[in-house]
């Protein structure tokens, strides 16, 4: 394997200066550790010569087992043996449903928003379980290198949000690892691939792992790996292929998943996974499962059926590819190479459909399991200072837009997705009630307009600024995203200088009892109820908007508006008033509101300025600084 012999020219390390650093690929299914020695990057084996460490942890009464042994015990001790824990990283209890009912674990009753799995060794969070995997990898690194580690680069899916990244960093901390950098998996893969092949130009990295999917469009040039855009799905991977097959098997056997024990479910999943792997070699795969003493089921999974089961999921990944290309402003024919990464790209159907989509033969000649760890090791080596004159530079982007909640449950984007990081951005907001002296800032991540459709990252409060007329306080919120893709936020009321700052910790949107109730409700109701709810919300919002514009225009329409503007605003107002009662869905009402907003944008800004002047008039500036 050519990849494993990457040497970096110009790497003149004096032995006594060399600092040991490792790259860790903490995967959903398997994990790896790699390092650069004598200029060569390679993954490290365990004492049995195995490079892949199954990401499975078994908790027993007297200890922790990680890896193959734990995996072997999975069917027998399914409740204490945890696999695919990466899927729960940075997730809240409310997310469990979304991840499917296929988790064969018992979750502890808890007040906290973080799910805890009951095991023989006590309740464990995803962070703790991941830390146990990381400890084994760290130990492997130390034993092989025979020295203390400077630190590690740990890879994460590019599409991981802030909460998932933070959870990964927390797990490393718990494992006693100094994190040099969180590195996006496709970027790591591109580094290994690019240095190995010497390719220059635009490359697409298609990374389908056990539980996550990433697509990154990158520009490779003279050692610079520049991510142009990234997209994906942090809850879609080869595991889902297994689940789809398992569901098919259970249905074919005339059974119901709810009636099966955790051990049996695990067994069906293992057989499903085996069948999937067989289909990379054969046209069909025989499956036999012993459900109990009296019932053994035999069946045949053909490629046709398999394709029917997984095609919708692959199509979903291609939608992400289309989006990433659009964001990068790159046409398909400009893509030099499509690099296939992640164990799930072994599935032939994936290669076939990806090849069709990009209209090119995807690159499958690199080891899809190891390439990420190797890229991480190369960056770890550079970050540890072993390559001071090196050309290597990784420029990455923010995968999901960051924003804050504004009136009416809408998300105002502050930093758009695919902005290069690190980046900082300040934005001014204002109060909406007279005399308001505090403001809650709710930070979200995601692309949708409605707060409910985005991921809640954190909430904090800014208090004690002096009362102003509605719309005249100026609250400047500064977002800083570092090179790990992690966010910190500070906020300041500009007139008074009152400051608040938070390091963003995952909130899961659940701290607030009200929101928890809302989320529960929204999960229990069907989609139609959700539509009704969002129409209601928009109606409330429409009432507020109508009231605000009427009261404003009653005040000062004549002095502040030209005839043209007045006509435009009144006509948009009339349309909104009609839509308030007639609109059948929230979207319709929202666009009527947007129209009014467009028509009155200049007016609102002028009023805000006038209001500031009025507030300040007759006061000394110092008065605003007290309190």
């Amino acid at each position: 394997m050519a990849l494993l012999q990457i040497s970096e020219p110009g790497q003149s390390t004096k032995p006594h200066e060399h600092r040991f650093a490792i790259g860790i690929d903490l995967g959903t299914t398997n994990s790896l550790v790699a390092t650069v020695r004598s200029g060569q990057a390679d993954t490290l084996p365990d004492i049995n010569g195995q490079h892949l460490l199954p990401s499975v942890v078994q908790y027993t009464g007297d200890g922790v087992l990680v890896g193959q042994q734990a995996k072997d015990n999975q069917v027998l001790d399914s409740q204490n043996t945890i696999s695919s824990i990466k899927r729960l990283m940075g997730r809240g209890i409310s997310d469990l449903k979304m991840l499917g009912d296929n988790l064969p674990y018992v979750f502890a009753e808890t007040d906290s928003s973080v799910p805890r799995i009951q095991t023989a060794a006590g309740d464990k969070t995803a962070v703790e379980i991941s830390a146990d995997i990381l400890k084994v990898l760290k130990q492997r690194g130390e034993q092989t290198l025979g020295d203390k580690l400077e630190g590690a680069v740990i890879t994460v899916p590019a599409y991981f949000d802030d909460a998932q990244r933070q959870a990964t960093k927390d797990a490393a901390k718990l494992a006693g690892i100094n994190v040099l950098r969180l590195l996006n998996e496709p970027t790591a893969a591109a580094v290994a691939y690019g240095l190995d092949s010497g390719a220059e130009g635009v490359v697409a990295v298609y990374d389908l792992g056990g539980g996550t999917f990433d697509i990154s469009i990158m520009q490779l040039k003279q050692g610079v790996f520049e991510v142009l855009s990234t997209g994906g799905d942090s809850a879609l991977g080869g595991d889902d292929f297994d689940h789809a097959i398992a569901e098919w098997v259970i249905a074919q056997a005339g059974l119901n998943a709810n009636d099966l024990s955790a051990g049996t479910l695990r067994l069906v999943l293992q057989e499903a996974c085996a069948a999937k792997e067989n289909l990379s070699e054969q046209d069909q795969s025989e499956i036999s499962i012993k459900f109990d003493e009296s019932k053994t089921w035999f069946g045949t999974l053909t490629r046709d059926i398999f394709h029917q089961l997984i095609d919708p999921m692959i199509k979903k990944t291609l939608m992400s590819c289309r989006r990433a290309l659009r964001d990068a402003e790159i046409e398909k024919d400009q893509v030099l190479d499509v690099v296939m990464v992640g164990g799930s790209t072994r599935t032939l159907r994936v290669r076939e459909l990806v090849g069709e989509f990009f209209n090119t033969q995807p690159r499958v000649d690199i080891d899809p399991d190891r390439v990420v760890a190797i890229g991480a090791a190369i960056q770890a080596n550079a970050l540890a200072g072993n390559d001071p004159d090196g050309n290597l530079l990784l420029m990455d982007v923010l995968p999901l837009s960051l924003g804050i909640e504004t009136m009416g449950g809408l998300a105002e984007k502050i930093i758009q997705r695919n902005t290069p990081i690190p980046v900082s951005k300040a934005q001014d907001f204002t109060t909406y009630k007279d005399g308001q002296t505090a403001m809650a800032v709710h930070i979200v991540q995601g692309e949708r307009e409605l707060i409910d459709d985005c991921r809640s990252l954190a909430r904090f409060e800014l208090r004690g600024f002096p009362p102003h007329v509605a719309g005249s306080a100026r609250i400047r919120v500064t977002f800083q995203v570092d090179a790990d893709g992690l966010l910190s936020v500070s906020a300041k009321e500009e007139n008074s200088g009152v400051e608040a700052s938070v390091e963003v910790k995952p909130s899961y949107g659940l701290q607030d009892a009200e929101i928890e109730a809302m989320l529960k409700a929204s999960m229990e109701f069907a989609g139609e109820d959700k539509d009704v709810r969002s129409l209601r919300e928009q109606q409330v919002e429409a009432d507020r908007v109508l009231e605000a514009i009427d009261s404003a225009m009653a005040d000062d329409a004549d002095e502040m508006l030209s005839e043209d503007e007045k006509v435009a605003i009144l006509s948009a107002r009339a349309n909104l008033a009609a839509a308030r009662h007639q609109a059948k869905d929230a979207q319709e009402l929202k666009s009527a509101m947007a129209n009014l907003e467009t028509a009155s944008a200049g007016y609102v800004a002028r009023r805000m300025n006038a209001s500031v002047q009025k507030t300040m008039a007759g006061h000394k500036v110092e008065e605003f600084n007290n309190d």
Partner: protein
Amino acid sequence: MPDSIFSQNYFEIFSMDISTNPDLSVLNESNRELQRLVHPDKFASSGDAEKRQAMQKTSLINQAFNTLKDPALRLQYMLSLKGIDMNAETDTTMDAAFLMDQMELREKISEVRTHSDPLDELDAIAKNLKKTSANLIVEFDKYFQTDVLDKSREVVRKLQFINKAQREVAELTEQLEDELL
């Protein structure tokens, strides 16, 4: 040189002349060269102060890069160099015909779901917006070159409207795509 970036304008940071239509390949190249010098990865084993500085510098360069890459942001920034703040909406009378066009457009967008092929229709709208945007940039250049700043400003305001509509079209496209799955 990288230390001086805090006192330079965005064009100067990349050693470029102020221009409505800068050469993007030069911008890209210059960006890569700068990042090689200041990116936080180059200071991973330095002290905290140096690390912080690297992050601030790179953040600024990224912001400058983003601003110059995006036409609406770039033009707005060029006006700010002339002391014109687009956010301070003082004398904003928008020409009524343009506003009406915008409303019609919004109506079109909001009714796109009733169209026989909504994604096609959105594509067509997006293409139109792109054309409008390109025309506005040409118009801006004409005014800006001759220092007719109030007109330049009006063009940028229009461009901002177009930009917002473009974002909405893109978002709606994604939403419809999701629903199709």
